[in-house]
């Protein structure tokens, strides 16, 4: 019920807000303000987390910083707005946030009916299942008649129901509103399976007393492409966010890192020359400068660096990248940026 009301509000807000948004381009507003208003969610490990010293970090936080570095010469010129997911689209539609970078799934309804524009995909997530290793289960197909711990009122709940129906199996759901309650239930043996997005499962598992005793099954039962979102109607601003993201991926593919970006300016590779603005004029066409990607890479690194820093093997979240969808297309994943030309 609340969701229906909120999405209705978001729609009316979107309808009402397109007029003032068009009146003044987002880029000009951001430049005039001197900082980017970037919306993240309530803290989530690996994507937008608060540290004890009060700084933000995470995949999506670095996306905000990258855009700030593209617009200004400073990745720190971001004001992070932490908003609950219930009001995220309204807060973007009414102009309060310039962009939204907060593990939001790209869906048809959101893209076409809420006045939103998805600027790309910075993380391919999908719903997974976690079971205790002791249960000796190797595939989700073996989970007939299982009890499943699932957060209530989320798409996760619908996805698991779809999965079981599609496979002609039955399950018993154990639901809770609060993640911590659900985790305690699972650890206490209250359910056989814990289901959530795979990125979330990795983080949850890393907080278990003995993470090695649990495993995430290979199946992915839903598609959750996550990416930054902007308001519909300001194409130029959407381009800036989209090509900043594409630039990060392109930089990894070309081997440009925050450490070697200055040397790479002398590179003879035409793709890298165009990416860094040595050749061509992509940046100025969007209202930025030629070398905007140089600033971005110096500020936050390339996609691979961002991944390793926030959710890589050395972090507590530890989402394996090799062989996953989030590997570059050259390495077996589906991360693929259109060419910079």
């Amino acid at each position: 019920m609340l969701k229906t009301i909120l999405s209705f509000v978001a729609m009316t807000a979107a309808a009402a807000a397109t007029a003032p948004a068009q009146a003044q381009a987002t880029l000009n507003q951001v430049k005039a303000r001197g900082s980017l208003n970037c919306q993240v969610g309530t803290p989530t490990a690996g994507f937008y987390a608060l540290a004890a010293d009060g700084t933000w970090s995470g995949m999506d936080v670095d996306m905000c910083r990258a855009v700030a570095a593209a617009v200004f010469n400073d990745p720190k010129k971001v004001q992070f707005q932490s908003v609950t997911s219930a009001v995220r689209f309204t807060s973007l539609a009414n102009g309060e946030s310039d962009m939204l970078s907060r593990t939001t799934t790209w869906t048809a309804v959101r893209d076409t009916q809420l006045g939103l524009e998805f600027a790309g995909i910075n993380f391919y997530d999908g719903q997974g299942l976690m079971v205790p290793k002791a249960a000796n289960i190797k595939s989700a197909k073996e989970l007939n008649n299982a009890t499943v711990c699932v957060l209530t009122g989320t798409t996760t709940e619908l996805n698991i129901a779809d999965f079981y129906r599609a496979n002609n199996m039955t399950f018993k759901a154990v639901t809770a509103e609060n993640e911590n309650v659900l985790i305690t239930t699972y650890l206490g043996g209250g359910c056989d399976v814990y289901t959530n997005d795979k990125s979330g499962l990795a983080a949850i598992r890393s907080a278990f007393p003995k993470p090695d005793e649990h495993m995430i099954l290979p199946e992915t039962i839903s598609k959750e492409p996550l990416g930054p979102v902007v308001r519909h109607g300001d194409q130029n601003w959407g381009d800036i966010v989209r090509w900043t993201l594409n630039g990060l991926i392109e930089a990894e593919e070309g081997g440009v890192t925050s450490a070697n970006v200055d040397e790479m300016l002398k590179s003879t590779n035409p793709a890298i020359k165009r990416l860094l603005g040595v050749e061509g004029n992509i940046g100025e066409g969007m209202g930025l400068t030629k070398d905007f990607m140089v600033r971005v890479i110096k500020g936050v690194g390339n996609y691979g660096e961002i991944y390793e820093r926030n959710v890589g093997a050395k972090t507590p979240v530890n989402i394996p990248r090799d062989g996953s969808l989030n590997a570059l297309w050259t390495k077996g994943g589906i991360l693929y940026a259109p060419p910079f030309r």
Partner: protein
Amino acid sequence: MAKEQKTSGAAAGAAAFKTFTPMAARPAPKDLTGVTAWLRTNLFSSVPSALLTFLGLWIAWSVLSALVSWGWVNAVFQASSRRECLDKVGLSGACWPGVVVWIPNLIYGLYPKDQVWRINWGALLLIVWLLPLWLPRVQSKIIIGFSTVLLFPLLASYLFLGGPKGWIWTALIAVGLTGFLWSLLTAASESLGGGPFLRLAARLMGAKTAEEEAQRGRLALLGLFAIAVLLVTQWNLDFVPTRVWGGLFLTLVISGFAITFSLPAGIILALGRRSKMPVISLLCTTFIELFRSVPLITILFMFNTMLPLFLPAGVEVNQLLRAIVAVCLFASAYMAEIVRGGLQAIPRGQYEAASAMGLGYWQSTSLIIMPQALKIMIPNIVGIFIGLLKDTTLVSIVGLFDLLSMARAIARDPGWIGLFLEPMFFITVVYFIFCFAMSQYSMSLEKRLGAGERR
């Protein structure tokens, strides 16, 4: 001296006549005194009562021992990440270091750590300002109290917010500072026996008649204001946007505003609703009913996400301000109904007696009716205040980091991932301290005013 003589005389008189002297009281029977007797009468008077006692003891023991073993015996006090805690004790003991490193965030939010002294000084300022209210020889307590409520926000908002200030802003801060200086000087001069500060200053300037005193008193106040302006212009603080305000500090700012605003606003609304003038009564009733029949979370939502739609593009109203206004309006609607209830408890005779004395509406309300009504309403008013302190947790929906949302963020910090029980325990204690202190203060206030007995 004279008194002593008299008693010794009486004693001599008593010795002369044989009078009745009662025997010394014998001690009570042994089985009615001492620990065993108390136990027998209170805890083990019958078999069911004894069983209940044992059951209660068992419940208390199991809860307390579990709590102590989790929070103290098995707890980890030295660790650099949750993983370290989990490897040491698993889930059987608390992991306190996570809460300890987050304490600055829990108290001050994301306020720049090198500027935190401003919040501490703000708190100190408030305490010093209110201190005269507890000094027995200070007479101007009411006006000092009012000056705190009205002027402290002016001074504190610059202290907390900082940044460049135009001349209006400078003047307002100076007014706040003048109020503070005046309160301090008045308290000092009154407790040293010099009477009100302004009169003292006027006399020192050679005022003789009452008229001269008033005139030069005003001059002294003006001088104080000039000093304040001078101080304020020299005073430059870095700008700290409200976006980074958070934790206990934010909780207290929002609830503090709501508490101080809701009482006067509630009184005005309640009087308005009872007014015989149809327009005023209709307006007040509409406001009260509108805000009372909508949940606070909806009001917060409307103020935060719908308001920007109705404002022209580019006009940004501060998010914290919107939340404060929403909470204030909501709280005053509730307060209005409590005040109205209190007003209705005053017997008609009081109104009639006040009219018979020739008092007008405002006089009878402020001198006869309101003081009695407010006295009866203390428990309800404090109930609302306590509720407000806890309701402020709802501002997390609009993205403000109050104490609760700060505590929740700990579980999402990669270093302390999954740590939620310990922070919740900690903020439970913090909320308890504040709410319990408020309720104790209201009890003592009730006792002092004798509100319970006098009816």
